[in-house]
Structure formats: structure tokens, C-alpha cells
């Protein structure tokens, strides 16, 4: 495998780009290249995907993935229709799924109401938790079945980059709107537009507390906190620079944080428990001049914040920070500086065009370098969805909810990352004994048909293979699930498994025909080290 890939890389270096490599080489290496690229750009190949992409041509397929609006996806859209909260407005969600009223909560706390009475008066499907449950199911459903795979990968990327936490205050009611109007439309668009959209959305204003930030000398005029001084909150200002744009070493100081916080005073939420619209309140805005990164900002009012967003979006540290994260997502945990520079340059040249950055990555020899193949450890959602796709299972909305819970058990509960960093994209974060057992147990549950709402027919993967020839069955499984990329050690272990009666259905002294237990064998492959990588 290594030698073949080395040759492949050589071909790529001379021709440039994944597509060229796939088209110009022998059929076997073309398959390996397409499989590798699919593992990086999608949630993993389904049965038949590699052949389809080869027939279409890898570069044509990649270009198509970069234009998701042109890919027909009505099958997923139909399945999503069973999740009504996805399309509801913030105001509708607040009305339809209110928090339990104060009286009910107090009764429950005092013991005047039993948990059962509570459930009757306030059924689970009327609770706010349903909103997050449906969003989680929708994400897994799309990841598993959408044809717009790159779009889904980038939605996941930006939801982590601009992380908000579902369980903080009002955020859960804002989430469907956040994903629908801010993240999805901009996932393959221009970064400056995405950044501006995040800055004004109530989900971000609430999560990073900017809605509470007011000029330093502000005294509350009305309500329970009347007379209290409520001043600057630096939370958003700091994360805006540290996590959304410049990066922690991007060259800003504590003084810049305070100045940026001053600029965003007055950016708040009108009627947070109704429609939660963005509003700029001039009365709470700090009108003085601000000096940010050595530049004086005196745009005035709401335009102070806009000027800062523009300035940060244009900053070379932002280009480098985003390039580093994208290369980490698609290529390797420790991004090669030369590739980062090229990707950052394309950001600068195009005014922050996300597609342009991705094109540089997809055409890079680094993506196909031998060291790159299998270098990334799948995140829990990536593992779960890739397993479902590999065995060709089609979850319904209920099944997608079960997949979200499975991912959560392995440590990645969607919308449930509390820190503003979102979920990490490095191997160390996801490799620990409890999580590894979780992966093996999911592989077993999936192949044994124990995941509700996900019907699996592993036998179809080896259709036509003679079950009485365990080696043939194994070869087919390895080709289908890990595209033949099994290490010698893994292959040897699996071949040895074929000697156990539990796998072949043979007792030691049985002379009858074997009947290979495909499910058990598939579970082992999905739990093997190779399948944890992409």
C-alpha cells in the first residue's frame, strides 16, 4: 500500500491535484485515491460511491460538491419534513415549546407535584428539549444521506468554529434559526459575510453575553436591577479575536479586547423571549473613539462594530488562522506551513472566498501525500455516520436521533459543546479507552441491528460471495468497508478470526459447510483501527 501511494504521490506532484492522480493512474490506485478523497470530503463512501465518482471524474465531482445548490437533495428534504421545529421561527418556537412556568417548577420543587403529574401536564414533546433533539437528528440524517456532503462537512466545521451552546439560557430557541439563516447559507460562501451574520444573531449575542454589554458607566433604568451599574462585558470581544478571526497568537492585546468590547456596546437582543431580533441601542453604546490594533475607529454608533468586523476579516492573521483550521480538517492534525500559506494567500486574493480556499486544499499534493492517507482520527459523529454509510444503511428521522445519541455517548453531543472553542479536531481529544469501547459497541449494535430506526443488511455487502468460503467473504467486506486498506496485522487477525467457530458457524469437529457470520465480521472491521481513521 505504502509503495503504491508513494508512486501515486509522485504522479500527483508532477500533475498536480487529486483529480489528475485519479484519472491518470492504474485502476487500483485510482480507486485508492478516490476512496481517500471521499473519506476526507464526505462523511465516508457508501457502497457504490467510489465507482460513481470514478465514472464522473474526481475533479468534476469535487467541483459539483463545491456548488451544493445545484445538487438535487429532495430525498433528504422529504425526510426532514418529519421534524417540524427545523423550519420554525424563534417566536414560533418560544410559543410552541415554552419553559415550564414558574408555578409548575415551584410545585415540583416543593414536592406538591409528582414527576408523573409534571409529565402529564407538560409532555416531553412539548418541551424545549425537542428543539435540540430534532436539530441533532437532522444533522445526522443529512450527514448520513445528503448528496451535498461537502456542504454538511463545512456546516459541521463552522458550527464548531462559531460554537454556541444549546444549554445556555435562551440559546436553544435560537438554534434552528442560527443554523438555517447564518451557518448553512454561508458555509461555502464568503467568510466576511459569515462573520457579519454571526455577530448579529441572537444565538451568538446571547452565548457570548454581548447582549448584556453596555458602556462602562451605564446604570440600569428599569426593572428588578434598576439602579445597578451594568457595564462592559468582554466575552464576545475576546472570542471574536481569539476564536473567530485572528487566533490566540494573532497579535492582539488585552487593551484591544476592551476596545473591541466598547465598540460592540449596544449590539443587543430586542425581546429575547419573543422574536429575539437584533437591535442596536444607541443609549447603551460607548460613543468615544476606540483604538484597535493600532487603528483609531470613530465610525460612530452601530458602524463601530461593523468597522471592526471588516478590519478583522481582512487581517492576515485571520487568513492564516482559518487556513490552518481548514487544512487541519481536510489534511492533517499538524498542518504543513507551506500549504497553510497558499490557502491563506487565496483567502487574501479572493476577499475570503471559502470555496477558493477549499480548491487550493483539494488540488494540493499535501492532501494526497502518503503520510496524509489515514492520518486523521474520525470524530465520534464522523465515525458513527461513516459506519452507517459504509454498510449502506438508511436511517429515518428516528434512527438519526439514535445515531446522535450514539455520538453523544462517545463524547460528541451535537450543539452540546459548552466552551466557545467547539469540539476539537485533533486525535488526542477523541482517543481514550471509554470512547474506543463506545466505538466498538456502536459497531456491534449497528451490525446486530440494535440501533432503532436504522435498518442494516450487511449481507448485501457480500452478495454473490460464497458464504462457505470465509476468505472470500472477508475480502469482500474489507473492500466494501475500508476499501482494501487493511494493514497486514489487521488482515492477519481477521483471517485468524475465520478459524473460530463463532464466525464460521462451524464447531471444531463439524465437517459441514461453513456459513460465515457476516455481521460479526463486519463489526470487527468497523471497530478496527483502520476504520477509526479517515
Amino acid at each position, binding site marked *: 500500500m505504502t509503495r503504491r501511494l508513494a508512486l501515486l504521490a509522485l504522479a500527483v506532484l508532477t500533475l498536480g491535484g487529486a483529480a489528475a492522480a485519479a484519472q491518470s493512474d492504474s485502476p487500483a490506485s485510482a480507486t485508492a485515491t478516490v476512496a481517500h478523497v471521499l473519506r476526507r470530503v464526505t462523511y465516508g463512501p457508501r457502497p457504490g460511491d467510489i465507482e460513481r465518482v470514478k465514472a464522473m471524474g474526481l475533479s468534476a465531482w469535487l467541483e459539483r460538491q463545491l456548488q451544493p445548490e445545484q445538487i438535487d437533495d429532495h430525498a433528504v428534504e422529504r425526510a426532514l419534513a418529519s421534524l417540524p421545529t427545523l423550519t420554525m421561527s424563534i417566536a414560533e418556537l418560544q410559543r410552541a415549546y415554552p419553559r415550564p412556568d*414558574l408555578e409548575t*417548577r*415551584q410545585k415540583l*420543587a*416543593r*414536592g406538591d407535584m409528582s414527576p408523573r403529574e409534571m409529565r402529564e401536564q407538560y409532555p416531553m414533546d412539548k418541551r424545549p428539549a425537542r428543539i435540540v433533539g430534532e436539530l441533532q437528528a437532522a444533522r445526522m440524517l443529512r450527514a448520513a444521506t445528503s448528496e451535498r456532503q461537502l456542504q454538511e462537512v463545512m456546516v459541521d466545521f463552522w458550527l464548531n468554529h462559531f460554537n454556541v*451552546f444549546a444549554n*445556555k439560557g435562551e440559546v436553544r430557541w435560537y438554534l434552528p434559526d442560527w443554523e438555517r439563516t447564518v451557518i448553512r447559507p454561508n458555509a461555502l460562501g464568503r467568510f466576511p459575510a459569515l462573520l457579519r451574520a454571526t455577530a448579529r444573531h441572537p444565538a451568538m449575542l446571547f452565548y457570548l*453575553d454581548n447582549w448584556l454589554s453596555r458602556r462602562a458607566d451605564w446604570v440600569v433604568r428599569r426593572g*428588578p436591577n434598576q439602579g*445597578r451599574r451594568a457595564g462592559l462585558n468582554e*466575552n464576545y470581544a*475576546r472570542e471574536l479575536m*481569539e476564536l473567530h478571526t485572528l487566533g*490566540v497568537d494573532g497579535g492582539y492585546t488585552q487593551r484591544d479586547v476592551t476596545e473591541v468590547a466598547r465598540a460592540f456596546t449596544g449590539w443587543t437582543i430586542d425581546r429575547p423571549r419573543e422574536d429575539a431580533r437584533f437591535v442596536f441601542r444607541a443609549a447603551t453604546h460607548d460613543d468615544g473613539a476606540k483604538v484597535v490594533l493600532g487603528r483609531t475607529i470613530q465610525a460612530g454608533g452601530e458602524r463601530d462594530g461593523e468597522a471592526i468586523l471588516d478590519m478583522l476579516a481582512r487581517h492576515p492573521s485571520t487568513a492564516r488562522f482559518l487556513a490552518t483550521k481548514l487544512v487541519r480538517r481536510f489534511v*492533517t*492534525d*499538524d498542518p504543513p506551513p507551506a500549504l497553510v500559506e497558499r490557502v491563506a494567500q487565496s483567502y487574501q486574493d479572493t476577499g475570503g472566498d471559502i470555496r477558493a480556499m477549499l480548491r487550493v486544499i483539494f488540488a494540493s499534493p499535501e492532501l494526497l501525500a502518503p503520510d496524509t492517507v489515514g*492520518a486523521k*482520527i474520525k470524530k465520534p459523529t464522523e465515525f458513527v455516520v461513516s459506519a452507517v454509510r459504509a454498510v449502506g444503511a438508511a436511517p429515518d428521522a428516528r434512527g438519526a436521533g439514535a445515531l446522535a445519541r450514539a455520538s*453523544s*455517548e462517545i*463524547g460528541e453531543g451535537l450543539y452540546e459543546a*459548552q*466552551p*466557545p*472553542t467547539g469540539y476539537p479536531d485533533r*486525535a*488526542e481529544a477523541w*482517543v*481514550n*479507552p*471509554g*470512547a*474506543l*469501547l463506545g466505538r*466498538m*459497541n456502536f459497531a*456491534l*449494535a449497528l451490525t*446486530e441491528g440494535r440501533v432503532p430506526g436504522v435498518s442494516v443488511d450487511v449481507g448485501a455487502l457480500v452478495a454473490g460471495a460464497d458464504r462457505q468460503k470465509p476468505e472470500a467473504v472477508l475480502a469482500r467486506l474489507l473492500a466494501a468497508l475500508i476499501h482494501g486498506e487493511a*494493514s497486514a*496485522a*489487521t488482515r492477519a*487477525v*481477521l483471517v*485468524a*478470526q475465520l478459524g*473460530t467457530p*463463532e*464466525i464460521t458457524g462451524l464447531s471444531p469437529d463439524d465437517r459441514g459447510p461453513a456459513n460465515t457470520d457476516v455481521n*460479526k465480521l463486519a*463489526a*470487527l472491521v468497523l*471497530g*478496527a*483501527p483502520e476504520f*477509526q*481513521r479517515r
Partner: protein
Amino acid sequence: MMLTRRALLKSGACALAAMAAPPRFLIRTAQGAERRGKVLVAIFQRGAVDGLSMVPPHGDPAYARARTSIALAPPRQGDSAAALDLDGFYALHPSLAPLKPLWDSRTLAVVHACGSPDTTRSHFDAQDYMESGTPGVKSTPDGWLGRTAAALPSTSATPFRSVALASRLPRSLRGDAGALAMSSLDKFDVRAAQPAVARRGFESLYADGVQDLLHGTGRETFEAVKLLKSAGASRLTPANGADYPRGRFGEALRQIAQLVRGDVGLQIAFAEVEGWDTHVGQGAEQGQLSNRLREFGGALAAFAQDLGDRMSDVVVLTMSEFGRTVAENGNRGTDHGHATAMLAFGGGIRGGRVYGRWPGLAPEQRFEGRDLAVTTDFRTLFNEIATRHLALPATAPLFPGWSPPPRPLGLIA
């Protein structure tokens, strides 16, 4: 992939396995000294517990004045429904009565007005700062218990050295030394129609091959599964008549006790308990907070009872990201504040005392005019307990960018 220290340690572990040496833990657990290792149990009360209700300062006249409907009444001799006097100034919430015997036997100490120098009132920021042990610094990659584990002698490491009873590894335990997160001892195994077959299969898939993080972790996993099985930890029933309250927190402590009693090499354990964000209808002797404290105190007391004599090797430390406003709000609850109270009990704790200078609750004594001021940096407390109880070198860098004050609290022998 970058080779982290943890990955290197694991490669070392696989080298051992490759020589077919007996598993490390079998050698160690055969040695008496290792069996009785010291254990630190950290409990995080997520959501900011009201220290002024947990350990009410009834001797401060401003206390009752600030809280017209939710202040606990001063202790009354013989009235078990009232707060329990500790020292004439502080009392214990009546729902924490199960912990009173630990106070009376001088194994339970309280540190009041304890908290972070960072002034954030955001739950998640404050939790992050307390768990990383670096207030105000978000880029710290590891947690304070992760660094504590790294400072322990590596010769004593088993897969169960650092364990969180949680589905994901909490920030506190993150670090190069590695830690285990598990939601349940019972579920910590391969679950299949024929588990033994599947276990053998998976184990052999990770047994050989390249020495990388994944394979190293795989070997560690099955080492842990086997160790847990052979120790029979999950079959140990609570001892000494201990009765854990139902609920996740009681379950977590019951299982930590199983790991301690099962001698699997546990040195650092972590559990969390939620429901302290009492903005509305907090209650006083009775009510919402009282119910939470009943579960909290009941579980801690059951843990101490379950471990019996073994508690001499164990210290339990409780913490919460911040406290709550001195004055009650318009909804008979409290809003996010600053300092709170933390508890420590077990072997070596000089109990029966409330530590820390009392800053006072009068409006001019409060932090920013509203909150209990912090007079003990949480790092002083955490550092003192971790270094003394686990016998770490005084120079162990558990809290980067900070040095302990010249005079320790003195709450641990």
C-alpha cells in the same frame, strides 16, 4: 501525527506488551503498598452553588437582612429542621445533616469565601477557568487534575489512575498523562450477543501493529476492561450499611467507592452534580436548594460510610464555579455571584474548622457591592490538598503562572 508525551508513554506500554510481560497492574496490585494508594476525589457542583445557604454565616447580621425570604434561621438547639451550628458563627444547612458527624469527628473542613480571582459571572467561563486552573486564560490545553496526574510517579500508573464518572472527559482531567471517562462500570465492556468472542476479536485487532495513539489506547482499553473484571469492582456492594441516594450523583460516588475498594490503582477521581443555578424559588430550610443539598450530602456521607477505614487514604474536595448574590432577587432566588463555600473531608484533613477570612456581608464589604468577596483563591485550596495528600513535590506546576501564598491554609496534615 505529532507524538505527544501521552502517545510516547503509550508506545512504552505497547513495548511492554510486545515482550509478553505480565500486565503492569498485576505486578503492582500484588504489592501491598500500592493497594493502599492515596486517592483524591474532586466533586464539581456545576451551576454555582449558594455557599451562603450551604454553610450559612448566621453570626453575620447582614446575612438575614439581605435575604428576607430565603435566609436560614439561626440554629436552635435540638431542632433538627433548623440549620446546625458549627462554631457559633457558621452553620450547616439542615439537609447536610448526614455530614455533621464528619464535622464532629474533625474530618470535615469548610473553606468559605473561596473562589476565583477572575470576575466572570458566566457559568461556562468560570467552570473552564476553575477546571483549567488558570483563571482568565482560555488557551491552557490541560486541566489541573491532568497536571496533578502528570506529577504523580509514572511507575504507579494503571489505566484507572485518573477516572471521571462521566461520558466525556471533563476539562479538569485533560492532559498528557491520560485519564479515563466512563459513565458506568457495568457498561465498561464490549456489549454484544457473544461478548467474549467480540472482546477477543477487538483486543487482537489492537494488540499488534504500529505503535501509535490508537493502538496504545486500544491495549490500555482491554487492560482496563480485564483489570476491572478481575477486581470484580462492579460487583462490590456498598459496605457498612451505606445507603446512596438515588440519582446520578449517588451512582457516581457509589462507583468511585467500588474502584477504591477494588484496588484498581485509582488516585484521582472526578464526579459532577448539577442543579445549583437557583435564580428562582431557591428556598431556605426547605425547597429547591434544600432538595439538591439532601442528595448531595446524602451521597457524600454514604461514600464516607461505604469506605469506612479506607477513608483515611481518601480526600474528597467539593468545588463550584462561583457563588451567588448576597441579596435575594425579585424571584426569591439568587443571581450569579462571586465567592462560595467548598468542603474537604477525609484522611489528613484537619476538620471541625471553617477556614478562610470572612469578608463580611454588609453592602460596603461585598465584591462590587453585591457578592461575597473572595478571600481564598481556589488554587490555594486545590494546590494544598493535591500536593499534600498525594505527596507531590512542592514545586509541581499544578497551577501555571501562580505561586502558592507563603502561608498555607493548614487544613491538611
